[in-house]
């Protein structure tokens, strides 16, 4: 895209503009050079807990290629402008592997664990291409269309069961977390009797507040769980993703057992909390903007547009994405040197005013056309499950509001919301509603 080799004429761009006039030799030196140096934080403003951090907006205006401090000693580039972030994510010279020199590891616990670095999320082409193709077919549009019947039935069952619960009820536990977990367990082929353990491990594995030892421990526990499932699929093949991967990739020697377990861990952790977070945030957003809900009910706006807009403004994957430059790379006006770490913030990019206009929670307004956002990332690592997420949200949200037209919040004050803390993905901890 816009990122081009430094030996082209765009190199002269580095001397124009205000930032950076001196190109750092390393991210650490860059920290000294950047007048906007601050600690990387995702904490939203206190009175607007559903907005991006205020300094993202400042950086986009004044210093879209900034330097941030990570953890105790690390630092990294932080890109906040839409076009720059998109260009970085599309450019495979930026490595996704934590083993690449300069990869910003601090504050991203567990990403260099052996089982993590063997996954497609943390690998680069051609390894990434080979791994991704093993599962891309299971999430391509026509495959997801094949899941439609059971996904809709799963959602309907969960929605119906809400009526049996004492009110007010917590929509996060009873719906938002339950649906994606049911769906991914079914696609993978987790037996019903193992689903509770599967959910508990998933929940623990996606907790960030664990120490490094605890991270390794839960990952190895999950790997052992997967190992047992793999053995089951070897002896009792069924029509599911894990059976197919076991027979097509493991037994043919294409994947090791550890890599296959890594695959499962990755699919589960990336597909569970994300959609769950989006369900909770979406319901809250629509209940807080009844005029927008009315536009959906009257058909003046489409649920497809609403889902994309909700994914954009909430961008539940907020930590990164992170990359390391494998050579000197020009990004817009900025030269990123080989061996420097980069955070290409899709949260910041999705709030870029020049692309989307005002994008705070209070500004929520469903556009006629679906917004072209980076909520599912971009480039070869773009979310493999995006079509499934769209199906779950695009069916589950309208169905919920249709089934319970009087759905309302117990507490309308968003400053009293509690969020899922210490998690890899953004989401509400509890959303109490009356049906």
């Amino acid at each position: 895209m816009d990122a081009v080799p430094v030996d082209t004429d765009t190199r002269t761009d580095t001397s124009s503009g205000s930032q950076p006039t001196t190109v750092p030799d390393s991210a650490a030196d860059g920290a000294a050079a950047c007048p906007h140096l601050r600690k990387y934080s995702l904490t939203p403003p206190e009175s607007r807990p559903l907005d991006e951090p205020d300094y993202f907006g400042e950086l986009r205006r004044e210093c879209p290629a900034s330097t941030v401090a990570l953890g105790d000693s690390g630092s990294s580039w932080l890109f906040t402008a839409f076009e720059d972030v998109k260009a970085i994510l599309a450019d495979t010279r930026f490595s996704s592997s934590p083993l690449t020199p300069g990869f910003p590891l601090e504050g991203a616990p567990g990403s260099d664990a052996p089982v993590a670095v063997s996954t497609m999320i943390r690998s680069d082409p051609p390894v990434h291409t080979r791994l991704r193709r093993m599962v891309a077919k299971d999430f391509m549009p026509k495959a997801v269309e094949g899941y439609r019947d059971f996904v809709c039935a799963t959602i309907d069952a969960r929605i119906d069961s809400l009526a049996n619960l004492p009110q007010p009820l917590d929509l996060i536990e009873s719906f938002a977390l339950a649906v994606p977990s049911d769906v991914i367990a079914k696609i993978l082929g987790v037996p019903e009797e193992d689903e509770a353990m599967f959910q508990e491990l998933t929940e623990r594995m996606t907790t960030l507040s664990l120490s490094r030892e605890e991270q390794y421990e839960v990952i190895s526990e999950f790997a052992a769980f997967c190992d047992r499932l793999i053995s089951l699929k070897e002896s009792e093949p069924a029509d599911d993703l894990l059976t197919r991967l076991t027979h097509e990739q493991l037994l043919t020697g294409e994947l090791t057992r550890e890599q296959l377990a890594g695959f499962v861990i990755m699919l589960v952790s990336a597909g569970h909390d994300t959609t769950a977070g989006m369900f909770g945030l979406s319901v809250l957003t629509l209940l807080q903007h009844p005029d927008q809900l009315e536009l959906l009910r009257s058909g003046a706006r489409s649920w497809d547009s609403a889902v994309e807009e909700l994914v954009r403004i909430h961008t539940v994957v907020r930590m990164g994405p992170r990359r390391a430059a494998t050579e000197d790379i020009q990004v817009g006006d900025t030269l990123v040197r080989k061996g420097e770490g980069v955070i290409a913030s899709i949260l910041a990019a999705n709030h870029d005013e020049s692309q989307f206009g005002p994008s705070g929670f209070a500004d929520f307004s469903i556009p006629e056309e679906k917004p072209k956002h980076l909520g599912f990332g971009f480039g070869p690592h773009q979310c493999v499950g995006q079509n499934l997420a769209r199906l779950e949200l695009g069916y589950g949200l309208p169905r919920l509001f249709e089934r319970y037209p009087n759905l309302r919040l117990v507490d309308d004050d968003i400053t009293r919301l509690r969020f899922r803390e210490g998690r890899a993905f953004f989401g509400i901890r509890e959303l109490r509603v009356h049906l």
Partner: protein
Amino acid sequence: MNLTIDVAKCCGSGQCVMAAPEVFDQDDDGVAFLLDRTPPDTERANVDEAIASCPTGAITVVDG
């Protein structure tokens, strides 16, 4: 318009199929291929959308 797909770049996201289902499909590995190498101009808007939404820039218009 004349289209090509760089299969080495394709990551199988299926965004082209969503944008222009008459022009693109995916094989058994999820890799995109062309149903119509020279789609009519009526498909132009859909193809442009497919090119813009392809995360890896794997689709190219060779001429026109």
